C-alpha cells in the first residue's frame, strides 16, 4: 500500500468521524463509536496493506469446509 492510500483512508475515516461525533450526546454512544471507528480504520489499513490476507471467507471455508466433502 502506498502512502497515498494510507492518507486517503485516514482522511475519509476522520471526515466520517467528525461528521458523526458532533451529533452524539450520550457518553456511552461516543465511546462505542470512537472505539469502533479506530478498529475499522486499523482493519482498513491492514486490508489495504495486504489484500490477500486471510479473512472472513477463508475462515468460513476452513470451518465449514472441514464438515463438507467437495463433490464437484
Amino acid at each position, binding site marked *: 500500500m502506498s502512502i497515498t492510500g494510507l492518507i486517503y483512508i485516514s482522511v475519509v*475515516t476522520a471526515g466520517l468521524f467528525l461528521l*458523526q461525533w458532533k451529533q452524539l450526546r450520550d457518553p*456511552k454512544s461516543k465511546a462505542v463509536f470512537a472505539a469502533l471507528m479506530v478498529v475499522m480504520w486499523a482493519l482498513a489499513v491492514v*486490508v489495504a496493506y495486504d*489484500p*490477500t490476507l486471510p479473512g*472472513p471467507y477463508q475462515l468460513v471455508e476452513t470451518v*465449514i469446509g472441514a464438515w463438507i466433502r467437495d463433490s464437484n
Partner: protein
Amino acid sequence: MPKTFISAFQLCVLMFLSLMGTAFLTEVSSAAPTAGHDLWVAPIWGLAGGLLCIFSWISLHNRYPGMSLVQYADRIVGPVVGKLLSLLFLFYVTYATAYMLRQFCDFINISFLMRTPPIALAFCLILLSAIIIRCGVEVLCRLAVFFLPFPFLLCALIFWPLYKDLKPILPLFENGLLPSLQGAFVLQTWYAMFSLITFYLPSVGRNQKIKGWSVTSTVMLCLMLVIVNWHVASFLRHATELYLYPVMVISRYSSFSEFFEHLESIAMMVWVVLVIIRVSYGYYCLATGMGQWFKLPDLKPVVIPMGMLLLIFSFWGMQSSLQVTINRWIVPAFYIACAIVLPLLLLLVDLFRRGIHPNKKATEPSLSKDEAEGAAL
C-alpha cells in the same frame, strides 16, 4: 429515539424485493451446475427451507415479543453463550451482505463500468444505504413498496420478447430427484436471508398478520425463481451453466420489435435499485444488531462503522467474488447453519426450559435500564 412501526405487508415487500435483485443476478448460475435441466424445479423444493426458516424465527419472536435475536439469546442460553451466538449471527449477516455487495460490484465492473474500481462502486452503494438506514426502518420499507413493480417490470422486459423462442424443458427428472434437490440446497443461500426478519419483527405494528405475509413473501420469491429459471433454461438450454450472469446475457439478446435495442441498460437501472434495497436490508440488521449488542439507546453511532465493516469484508481476502464459489456447498451450508439450525436450537432450548406455552410473566421480565434502551432501538 421515537419507535417507528411498519406493517406486515411492508416487511413482506422488503424481504421479497431485497432477494429478487440478487436472485436475477446470480441465482441461475449458482443452481444450474447442480440442478441441470431441473433448474426450475429446485426453488419449489427449496421453499421448504424458506418456510422452516420463517416459522422458526416467528415462533421465537412470539415467545419473546418486541425483541430480536440479540436480546432474547441472552435469556435463552445465558449471557455469555447468548452474546457469542448473537455475534455469530451478526457475522453471518455481515458476510452475506458484503459478499452480495462484492458480487454486484464485480458484475458492474465486468459488464458496464470497466475502468471504475469495484471499491468506488461499493463505497457509493454503502453511502447511499447508510443514508437510508439513518432515516429509519420506515423509510426503507416505503422505498421497497415504491419500487415493488420493478422486478416484474424487469421480468417482462427481458422475457416477453423471447416468447416465440421458448420451448418446454423435457425430460423432467432425467437423472432422478437428486440434481433438483442439490439445486434446492444451493438456493438456500437466498431463502436463508429471510432469517434477517428477526431484526424487523419488533417494528411490525400488527403482529397477527405477520405469519401470512411472510409466507406470501416466501412463496412469491419461489414463484419468481421458478419463472426466471424456467425462462433461462428454456432459452439457453445446455449453455445455461456456462454463463456467469445468464439473465444479463438474455437481456442483451432481447429487443422489442427491432426498435428498442440494448434493453440491458434498463435492466441495469432496475438492478441497481434492487441491490441498494438488498444492501440496506442487511445493513439495517447489522446496525440494529450491533447497537443492541452494545446496548446503545440509538443505532446511529454504529451506522458508519458498520458501513466501513461491510466495505472491508467485501474486499478482505477476496480477489474476486468468484473465488467463494470454488466449493459450492460451503456458503449454503453456512447460511443454513445460521438461518435455520440456530433458531431451531434456540427454540428447542426454550421449549425445554419454559414449555410450549410460556406464561406472560416469563415472557415480559423486568428489563434493566440498559436492556430497556436496547429494546427501544
